[in-house]
């Protein structure tokens, strides 16, 4: 088996929240050495507060800042160091780290990086071929919104996606969580891959300046062209398709169970009519051809739901696919762990923690691409806060023992965050009653084989 694509590449991940930190995790899967840098008083928000996700067995535990699910998914396979960037010694060590690294990722505000002399022109002086990746809400430069606060939830409206998302004829809506963050994640991988290749050819580094807003707008391209050329403003059509019919999300057997399907030709429609036990519908002039099905979509939806609501979602998928209709069930966070396709591809990867972490074993999203000659995989568990201070500062940068101790004493580095507190957990049964959870399976560890 060949080696991993980024073996031998060192990446500084001085970024927070989702977008670039997640890129850091995916870069570690590719074989890069990724060093996450946090301030002793500025732990990543995925360790605290509303972005933390879940805790093992809903228990904060002793070192709660190392235990949240989103922190652990994003920071798999990385090293962790802490540096107080408001202290000149912290900034000096950061500079020393740049000198021995290939890539620096950051998402500070432009003003902060300049004030630390860590904007791109200054970084380039430290390491001429450094590749720097910045991610901000609206991108650098002199634009009117460049200094506006931003994160993915509110940007989903501003970059246009809420306008086209929502139930038919109702107001704009959001879908998923933090959508545009992931567009920045993958854009950063693309930027780093291309810039590394270019550096190998020419010896030159460069600066990738990613603005989340612009990445989001890119995914609206056809709507923008339609508005410009045809004066059409798009809008909301729920789960329907602009021309295939019927398409939608219908109730399946059971509580909150759903099937999606999309019919694109008359033959598969006839096949679906047979499955429904209503072969005569295939010849019914109201539904016989694509155009009439599009016109009579509302009444068609109730007909379809009358059938699907009594049948299991997987049974529906296999039957519909059998007559050539794209179809699939709505999967939730439990379902995905047992779905045969995701299982067969190993999309969710198991991470075993060392005993002292008291984290057991957990499943995490891997990555949506496989390489035939490189065994891409999660390389190990997330690090604890500042776990690699010693390795990186003394081992890699050659800080002597005495200096290291003074850094510890002065809290320039730390292994326990100096600020932040855990948000108390809501007991599972109360969470169910309050609607914070849709469902709770107390036997999950056994069922997943993680007990």
């Amino acid at each position, binding site marked *: 088996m060949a*080696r991993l694509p980024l073996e031998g590449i060192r990446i500084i991940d001085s970024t927070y929240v989702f977008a670039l930190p997640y890129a850091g995790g995916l870069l570690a899967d590719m074989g890069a050495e990724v060093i996450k840098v946090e301030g002793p008083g500025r732990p990543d928000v995925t360790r605290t507060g*509303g972005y933390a*996700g*879940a805790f093992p*067995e809903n228990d904060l535990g002793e070192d709660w800042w190392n235990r949240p*699910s*989103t922190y652990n*998914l*994003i920071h798999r396979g990385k090293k962790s160091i802490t540096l107080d960037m408001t202290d000149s010694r912290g900034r000096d060590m950061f500079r020393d780290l740049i000198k021995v690294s290939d890539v620096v990722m950051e998402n500070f505000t432009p003003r902060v990086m300049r004030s630390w002399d860590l904007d791109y022109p200054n970084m380039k002086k430290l390491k*001429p071929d450094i590749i720097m990746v910045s991610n901000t809400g609206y991108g650098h430069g002199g*634009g009117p919104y460049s*200094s506006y*606060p931003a*994160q993915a939830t*509110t940007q989903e*409206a501003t970059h*246009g996606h*809420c*306008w*086209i998302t929502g139930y038919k004829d109702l107001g*704009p*809506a959001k879908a998923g*969580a933090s959508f545009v963050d992931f567009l920045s994640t993958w854009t950063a991988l693309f930027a780093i891959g291309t810039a590394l*290749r270019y550096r*190998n050819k020419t010896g030159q*580094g460069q600066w990738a300046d990613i*603005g989340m807003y*612009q990445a989001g*707008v890119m995914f*609206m*391209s*056809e709507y923008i*062209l339609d508005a410009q*050329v045809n004066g059409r*403003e798009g809008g909301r059509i*729920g789960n329907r398709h602009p*021309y*295939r019919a019927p*398409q939608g*999300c219908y*109730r399946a057997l059971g509580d909150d169970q759903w099937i999606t399907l999309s019919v*694109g030709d008359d033959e598969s429609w006839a096949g679906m009519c047979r499955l429904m036990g209503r072969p005569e519908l295939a010849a019914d002039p109201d539904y016989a051809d694509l155009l009439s099905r599009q016109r009579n979509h509302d009444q068609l939806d109730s007909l379809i739901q009358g059938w699907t609501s009594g049948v299991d979602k997987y049974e529906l*998928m296999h039957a519909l696919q059998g007559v*050539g209709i*794209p179809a699939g069930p709505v*999967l939730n*966070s*439990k379902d995905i762990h047992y*779905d*045969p*396709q995701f299982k067969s*591809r190993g*999309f*969710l990867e198991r991470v075993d923690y060392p005993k002292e972490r008291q984290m057991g074993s957990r499943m*995490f*999203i891997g990555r*949506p*691409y496989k390489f035939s000659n490189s065994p891409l995989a999660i390389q190990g568990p997330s690090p604890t806060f500042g776990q690699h201070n010693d390795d990186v500062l003394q081992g890699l940068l050659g800080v002597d023992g005495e200096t290291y101790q003074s850094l510890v004493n002065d809290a320039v580095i730390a292994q326990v965050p100096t600020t932040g507190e855990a948000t108390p957990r809501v007991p599972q049964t109360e969470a169910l009653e309050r609607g914070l959870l849709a469902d709770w*399976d107390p036997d999950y560890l056994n069922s*997943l084989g993680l007990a």
Partner: protein
Amino acid sequence: MTSTQSHQAPLTHGPLDGVKVLDLSEDIAGSFCGRLLADYGADVLKIEPPTGAALRRMGPFFGDDPHPEKSLFYLVMNLNKKGATLNLETVTGQKILKRLVPHVDVVIESYRPGYLAGLGVGYDDLVAENPSLIMTSITPFGQTGPYSQYQGEEVVSYAMGLIMSISGIQGEEPLKHGGFQAQYEGGLNGAASTSMALFMQGNTGEGQHIDVSVTECVASTAMATQTMYPFMGGTLPRRRPSGSNFGHPMPCKDGWIIVQTGGGATWDTIADFFGDPRLKEPKFAEPAQRIRNTVELDQVVLESIKERGKWDLFTKAAEARMLFGLVQTPSELLECPQLESRNFYRDVDHPVIGKVKVPAVLFNLSLTPYQYTGPAPTLGQHNAEIYVDGLEYTREDYVRLRQLNVI
């Protein structure tokens, strides 16, 4: 790697300069992947069936005229590429593809897994012609697994990729994003993974078969959702029908806005921004209280913005350092001053469509930035260049290939 050059000639190429790509895809995802590689310097040749790629039949169309050269979707997904036609269902077409493959680094395709192999031009066949080839396949469920032969659609990838389970309103049907986000996500992941494989190919000479699953791309955006189960056995719900406006669009006088607490703004600042004194009552002071009294909170907030305009609110929210957005329409995005400042759009002059402004720059790269080099190719536009100049078919044979429906 050291940088010893003391001066730089002005660069007119991208970071993927010298990379050659055959884009066999007919859909959005594969075409977007090829376009991103072309945007950053790769030399991309679109190969289509003589009848044209399926995307040429997909709207919106210029002037609502469903002409094969007037698909705006095809246009925007195939900027900066050259184009040739080739019928892969003929033996001659297959032979020609095998003659092209030794000249390229990457092949992109998005056919049903096994289709190309069935024609004798799958990864194993092509890598025999070019041992360091990278082939990037982008499909709904991936190349392997029990559903690999199943048909995909945007709504199906959204359903199986977890996102619908948390989108929409409790009691109502789960909701997908509008448009074709899953297809774009597949294209972006195709480009990202291909760039990594190209870096490795440059170092080791080895290629890869890259297998991108569009459904897994969607599922990758659900990380907080996925981990709920293996960490505590939980399943997340969709939003409640009332009392959950923060973090979701709310109507104001002339549109919709969206507000999130947190960021640089305290609750006091947010209360002042909305301007209703009731928001300063103790029952809204702490996050836990706001959650408990959320239905009432939503009412007060909605009343306070009923007569206010979205642009005025947007500017004032930024001054208050609030996390705030407004729902922009496509034509507002077209006129956006922030996008202008980033030089996001490019003017394209297409031989059939004419002049249009297209979304162009995904991200800025300081030394080798995005470059616009040409509109999408017309059907078979570069056939002569590829087959006569490149593969050195005689003019007579070139004409024969057309008459035999090979090109």
